[in-house]
């Protein structure tokens, strides 16, 4: 998402400056042009697509109305399982990744082994394909039949997703922790707060606030990757769409699932964009003080 204003391409540098000085608001005229050009563009595209020679076949294979209508409720129901998977995994990731990030930020030579452990962890799980970790744990752990460990592949799928995404989120947290200026820690310590108190009351609140956008981005990734759990035979959204597709000899259930995903992910990406934009405005306002 760039700050490019549609309908205002290629202003010469001199004009651009005057736009900035006048507040950068596009005038009523450019809004009209933007709306008109958008409507015309998409109408042309739609007409071209619908009249293309293969359209009838595509429409029948992917957008069959009856199949869509029948599959949506079933897919939504199955998608509840995905929601449970990614919500649980997100809760685990929030805590576990924060723990790892704090571990990695511990200063002093005594904590070297813990730091190494945290580094090794992130290297390992960022270096493996998610679907491989899910297969390893989801097929492997139940097969071991170890005493006291759950044998449900559903359980291990959640663990696998949590392990992988914690590795990414740890890095996000760590970037946030490191972005808090050392003078903040000095101020906290000078008041007599201990290392952990400074972390808890001064560093972490500021760090977490700053990394909200990349954190949410990773969560959207996690939500999409909940579909990978289908390799274990868990009947969640993708698996259900697969079954329905084979039953109907038609790909519309996949499209239905795609729509379900978009309905939950697009609002979130918009929200992240809004957060980033708000942060940017705040920083700019802050820099003029």
């Amino acid at each position: 998402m760039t700050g490019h204003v549609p309908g205002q391409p290629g202003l010469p540098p001199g004009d651009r400056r005057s736009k900035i000085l006048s507040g950068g608001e596009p005038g009523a005229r450019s809004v009209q042009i933007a709306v008109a050009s958008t409507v015309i563009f998409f109408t042309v595209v739609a007409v071209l697509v619908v009249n293309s020679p293969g359209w009838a076949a595509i429409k029948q294979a992917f957008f069959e109305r009856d199949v869509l209508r029948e599959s949506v409720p079933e897919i939504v129901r199955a998608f509840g399982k995905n929601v449970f998977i990614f919500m649980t995994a997100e809760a685990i990731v929030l805590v576990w990744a924060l723990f790892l990030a704090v571990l990695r930020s511990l200063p002093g030579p005594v904590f070297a082994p813990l730091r190494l452990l945290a580094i090794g962890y992130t290297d390992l799980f960022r270096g493996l394909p998610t679907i491989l970790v899910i297969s390893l744990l989801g097929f492997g752990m139940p097969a071991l039949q170890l005493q006291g460990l759950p044998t449900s592949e559903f359980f291990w799928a959640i663990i696998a997703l949590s392990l992988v995404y914690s590795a990414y989120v740890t890095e996000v947290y760590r970037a946030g922790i490191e972005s808090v200026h050392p003078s903040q820690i000095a101020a906290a310590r000078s008041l007599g707060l201990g290392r952990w108190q400074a972390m808890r009351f001064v560093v972490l609140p500021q760090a977490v606030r700053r990394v909200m956008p990349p954190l949410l981005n990773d969560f959207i990734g996690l939500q999409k990757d909940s579909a990978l759990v289908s390799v274990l035979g868990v009947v969640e959204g993708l698996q259900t769409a697969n079954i329905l597709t084979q039953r109907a000899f038609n790909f519309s259930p996949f499209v239905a699932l795609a729509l379900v995903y978009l309905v939950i992910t697009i609002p979130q990406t918009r929200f992240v964009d809004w957060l980033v934009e708000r942060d940017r405005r705040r920083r700019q306002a802050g820099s003029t003080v």
Partner: protein
Amino acid sequence: MSAPEALRIEGLHKAFGDLEVLRGIDLVVADHEVVCLIGASGSGKSTLLRCINLLEPIQAGRIVIEGQDVTERGVDVNQVRRRIGIVFQSFNLFPHMNVLRNVTLAPQQVLGRSREQATEEARVLLERFGLLDKAEEFPDRLSGGQQQRVAIARALAMNPDLLLLDEITSALDPVLVAEVLDAIRELAATGMTMVIATHEMGFARDVASRVCFLDDGRILEEGAPAQMFSEPTEPRTREFLDRIIAAGRM
């Protein structure tokens, strides 16, 4: 020196890698004394204050606070720091907390004060510095002078035996300097023991019981402000003061 000592520094050495910043500082500050450190940028004023507050590890020497050697091994640094307040050049307020919370955080978490008691004490302090109406504001909504006064209140909330001020007006607009210096004058009048690194010579002359001139990591000369500013004995001190006068800072 008959008055009890708030601070005694002996043979303090501090280096950042190969760069020697403090090369043998000796300094004694009596209770209720206000000592101003003057000297060019890079002469070691800030580093000295940060060492006293144990924010910087030192290479050699002793720092004794109210009779306790705080440079000994096994000293609880948090215990020491709660007795020494420091105010920084760049305020360093906590931007995610409102003014009141900035002031009450340490008393609650370090001294174990109840929320009500810490709030009550903080309000008294904020009132004293004319900031009570800003208690609910966040730091970025305040002027530099207001932020710095909040930082002073935050340090005082710990009821320190000794207050260190590190060029606290250097980051301020000239028009905001006076309100912060007035707050410090008032503090000096109440008998607060202070070590102040400053470039404000007029202020130093007013408020200091003693002025120390730092040059190249040593205290080259010290004395009463009247003597230091009118007839310094060291040529280097005279040279420094002449440059300050030429720059219109005195």
